[in-house]
């Protein structure tokens, strides 16, 4: 009776309960009064006996038919399972808990049958091995596709400049493979390779041929870009972009149908080559991850273990993304770490081993294809052997600062641009936009040799250190060597020659160009990765810094810092190393990866001694970048698109309660619930068609609001449809029941419809006073899709993943900085304290109001405080 008094008082809470209670008959939730009293009524006894919701009884419980029904979850073996139940709609979130239960169930079944016959035993073996098989196939396919993409992109890229006359399928370098006409200075020229000017005009040199080459370059770039965007638009719109934000979201449990399908794979592979060859400022590394994930998804359809279970499928996708990075950078370990650090959401140890294996297989396949003819997996593999010195950490950290600044700037600018594309009319012309950007890129890029060449080649050139064997412009130092001087193996620091100065300003222009174009390119409707352009920007900046430090050391070798270790004529600064550190720093600033990035770069170079500079630069870049905004580019894009992604890295530091987040809020229509045995089919259909909710709590009855279970909308519709097709005598007026036994009905009523098999009888529940901190943690760790909120065992509302995301967004926008730690700590669990009536309600009030500025709270603070207090008191009494 305590609670009855409580709820009948005027004020704060009654309104909300009344609004719930004032609903139409089927959906209504009565106020809590009397419910506690109801506890021993026959209805509740029924509930306890029939449904056995008590803990521990959810396995091997024998039901009326005498058949062992194994769980309370989904499958009721009295009836055959309804096809389609337990699947998800497009753009919906999966329920990890449910999927994992399903998998364990399946596993138990197979294990139980194993001993029956040899065939069953083979089947169980096949099932046990299918995980390894599917990652093997994925690794094979992604390695082969990466090889295809590498070879085709290289070739198509060189088509912009010319063609190999005697074998048109060779790219420039392969064309001059055996030619002895190449010279030391111009090592890429050979008579077999004809530039377009040479082919059309008949002369290789001169202004006319330059213009002709320029024109052909633009022509090819435009046509490649046009073809790419056209194919994407006509066949598979999901093939555009880098794909990593979406894969992250999918791995966290979102369904995007067709995103990892056959057509997406085909079109992404084909258009990726075109997009890379068109010279746009983009890379193939991110899309390769998408391609690998498509392979993983397609192969998982061959194995029922993975095709029927969304959670298990995501384990394969985690492994596939590792294989993708493995072939993109030739870094198998880096790929595994990338999958762990950046994309995966649920990453058990078993998945780690499978990722490892997939990465291994993929790298092996790519290595045996040998796409670059250098026995390496990437074009820009370099080896250094020169040591670095402690003093050099200062420029490395400076590069880290640059990387962080660039990352923060890029994310801000790119997101602003993408938001513009998303919200204004300008987004309606994707084809025109691509053509426009490609045209600008081609026109500006051609005159500068550093932007004209393939970005991977540029990175390679910047990474490569100047040695006596190098002849590029970057290495044209004023030579002090004369013939009489003793042969030195390494190149000593030397004054820069005119070539280096020319290269410096060209590199500066290239840096500016790349920075601007990358902002506008990432987000175009063609496959576009971000790794390579970011690395190129970092490599350019790093090389510039490296050369500057080198010249400083040369001209001021008497400075204290240089004196000890940088003597005249020795090789103490390696500009290529600076380029590599810069590349890592910029990539770190954009993606905010740390461990995996260092490992990837380390695997690129194969030099263990450079791990410390890389770590210093990457860490600095992350710190600097985080100072301007905590999210990396992928999280930013996830947020821009509003995907339901609950980031495991972010901390929830607010003090709201489950009650503040749950739906319905006080101004909302009441919660739509189903009762367990007094609805008819037509009423149920009415509820489903009137509302758009994806699931409905099932309660005992209108009087007793106790929770029975949770039924998903999709399952209900499928089950009704299925029953009306297959079962005789199901009419619109048939009674629907979720209980074990059919309710007692009048004799003339039509046959009732049993929907127990689709009822989830172990929905996750929290009480209304659970701090959101805990709720968010539960959602993250268990991967819940929704969670019911109860009060005294009665259903009050529901919290979905999207509610939590909206709540987080709201808090991010509205709240002032958090209260100090002790304050926060003290007011965290208001209900767990004793009856200290003075301070607790005040805290409580403080919690409630600021977090929900949109809420109408009563002007009379005192009263509502008191109300809350009474509610709490009442609660502690009744429990």
């Amino acid at each position, binding site marked *: 009776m305590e609670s009855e008094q409580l709820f009948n008082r005027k004020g704060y809470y009654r309104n909300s309960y009344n609004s719930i209670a004032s609903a139409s008959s089927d959906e209504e939730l009565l106020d809590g009064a009397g419910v506690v009293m109801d506890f021993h009524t026959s209805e509740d006894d029924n509930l306890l006996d029939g449904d056995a919701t008590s803990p521990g009884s959810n396995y091997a419980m024998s039901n009326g038919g005498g058949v062992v029904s194994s769980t309370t979850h989904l499958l009721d073996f009295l009836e055959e399972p309804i096809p389609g139940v337990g699947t998800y709609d497009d753009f919906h979130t999966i329920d990890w808990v449910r999927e994992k239960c399903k998998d364990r169930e399946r596993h138990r079944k197979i294990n139980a049958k194993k001993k029956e016959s040899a065939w069953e035993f083979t089947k169980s073996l096949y099932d046990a091995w299918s995980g390894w098989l599917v990652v093997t196939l994925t690794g094979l396919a992604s390695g082969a596709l990466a*090889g*295809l993409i590498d*070879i*085709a992109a290289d*070739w198509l890229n060189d088509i912009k400049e010319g063609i190999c006359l005697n*074998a048109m*399928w*060779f790219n420039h370098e*392969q064309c001059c*493979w*055996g*030619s*002895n006409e*190449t*010279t*030391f*200075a111009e*090592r890429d020229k050979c008579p077999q390779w004809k530039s377009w000017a040479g082919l059309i005009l008949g002369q290789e040199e001169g202004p006319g041929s330059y213009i002709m080459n320029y024109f052909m370059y633009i022509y090819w770039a435009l046509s490649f870009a046009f*073809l790419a965007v*056209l*194919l994407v*638009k*006509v*066949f*598979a*719109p*999901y093939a*555009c*972009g880098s794909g990593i934000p*979406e894969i992250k979201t999918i791995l966290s449990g979102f369904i*995007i*149908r*067709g995103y990892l399908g056959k*057509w997406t794979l*085909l*079109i992404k592979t*084909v258009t990726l*080559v*075109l997009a890379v060859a068109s010279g746009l400022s983009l890379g193939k590394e991110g899309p390769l991850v998408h391609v690998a994930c498509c392979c993983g998804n397609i192969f998982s359809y061959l194995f029922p273990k993975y095709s029927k279970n969304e959670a298990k499928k995501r384990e394969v996708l985690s492994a596939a993304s590792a294989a993708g990075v493995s072939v993109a950078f030739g870094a198998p370990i880096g790929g595994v770490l990338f999958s762990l650090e950046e994309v995966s959401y649920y990453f058990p140890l078993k998945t780690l081993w499978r990722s490892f294996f997939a990465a291994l297989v993929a790298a092996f396949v790519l290595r045996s*294809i*040998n796409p670059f*003819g*250098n*026995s390496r997996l990437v074009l820009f593999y370099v080896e250094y052997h020169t040591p670095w010195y402690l003093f050099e950490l200062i420029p490395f950290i400076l590069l880290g600062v640059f990387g962080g600044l660039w990352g923060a700037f890029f994310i801000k600018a790119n997101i602003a641009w993408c938001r513009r*594309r*998303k*919200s204004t009319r300008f*987004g*309606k012309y*994707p084809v025109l936009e691509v053509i426009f950007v490609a045209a600008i890129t081609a026109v500006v890029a051609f005159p500068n040799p550093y932007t004209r060449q393939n970005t991977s080649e540029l990175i390679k050139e910047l990474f490569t250190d100047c040695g*006596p*064997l190098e*002849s590029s412009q970057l290495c044209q130092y004023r030579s002090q060597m004369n*013939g009489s001087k003793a*042969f030195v193996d390494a190149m000593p620091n030397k004054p820069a020659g005119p070539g280096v100065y020319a290269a410096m300003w060209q590199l500066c222009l290239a840096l500016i160009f790349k920075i601007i174009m990358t902002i506008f390119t990432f*987000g175009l*409707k063609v496959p576009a990765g971000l790794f390579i352009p970011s690395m190129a920007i970092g490599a350019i900046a790093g090389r510039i810094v490296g050369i500057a430090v080198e010249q400083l050391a040369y001209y001021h070798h008497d400075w204290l810092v240089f004196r000890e270790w940088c003597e005249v004529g020795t090789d103490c600064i390696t500009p290529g190393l600076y380029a590599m550190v810069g590349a890592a720093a910029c990539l770190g600033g954009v993606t905010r990866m740390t461990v995996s990035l260092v490992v990837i770069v380390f695997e690129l170079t194969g030099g263990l001694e450079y791990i410390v500079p890389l770590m210093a630069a990457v860490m600095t870049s992350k710190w600097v970048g985080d100072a301007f905004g905590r999210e990396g580019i992928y999280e930013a894009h996830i947020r*821009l*698109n509003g*995907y339901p992604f609950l980031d495991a890295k972010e901390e929830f530091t607010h003090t709201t309660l489950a009650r503040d987040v749950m739906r319905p809020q006080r101004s909302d229509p009441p919660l739509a619930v189903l009762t367990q045995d007094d609805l008819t089919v037509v009423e149920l259909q009415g509820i489903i068609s009137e509302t758009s909710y994806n699931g409905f709590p099932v309660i005992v009855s209108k009087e007793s609001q106790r929770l029975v279970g949770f039924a998903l909308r999709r399952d209900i519709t499928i089950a009704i449809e299925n029953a009306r097709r297959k079962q005789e005598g199901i009419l619109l007026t048939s009674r629907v029941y979720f209980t074990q036994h059919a309710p007692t009905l009048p004799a003339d009523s039509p046959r009732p419809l049993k929907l127990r098999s689709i009822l989830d009888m172990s929905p996750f529940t929290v009480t209304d006073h659970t701090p959101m901190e805990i709720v968010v943690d539960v959602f993250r760790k268990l991967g819940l899709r929704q969670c019911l909120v109860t009060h005294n065992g009665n259903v009050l509302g529901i919290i979905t993943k999207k509610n939590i995301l909206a709540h987080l967004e709201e808090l991010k926008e509205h709240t002032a900085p958090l209260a100090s730690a002790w304050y926060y700590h003290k007011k965290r669990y208001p209900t767990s304290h004793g009856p200290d009536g003075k301070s607790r309600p005040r805290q409580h009030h403080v919690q409630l109001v600021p977090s929900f500025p949109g809420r109408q709270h009563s002007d009379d603070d005192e009263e509502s405080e008191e109300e809350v207090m009474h509610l709490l008191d009442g609660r502690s009494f009744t429990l």
Partner: protein
Amino acid sequence: MSGEAFNLLSVLLGLLLMSTQTTDAKISEDIRCKCICPPYKDVEGQIYKQNVSLKDCTCLHVVVPMPVDGKDVEAYCLRCECKYEERSSGIIKVTIIIYLSILGLLLLYMVYLTLLEPMLKRRLFGHSQLIENNDDVGDQQPFANAHNVLSRSASRPNMLNKVEHAQQRWRRQVQEQRKSVFDRHVVLS
């Protein structure tokens, strides 16, 4: 008897020889030893390439003619860097051909879908069908009805119908994707 055996043997040997020759030819095209020799005294820098096996990939074997005199050969060769490289021209050729043919097929199919099919449909079903289609506001695909009619009326073999159906479904999916990517901008923007 012995003559025949001898003949057979010789044929076999010949075949073996030929096969080794062809593999030799293949290898000689796909391997190289590349020596980069930097400038030395008054000798210009030079690049030498030879089709030699890995064990012969040294400066002394590859750099012919040697540009310096006998006493300088060692010093010159010390500076040269020789790298043995392999490639597989067959894989490159096949890859490029596969890639181009897939691209070509896709382009053809695209042309068919966007230009030819509407024309064919118009000719097949005449005017009334078109008007009916146009009335269909919610339906974004102008051929949806036509296809339904086609699959219902034509008593073709099952397989063809299945393909038709799959194509239809696929097209609806792409339509949906296009809407969500390009029009509503809910994903991938």
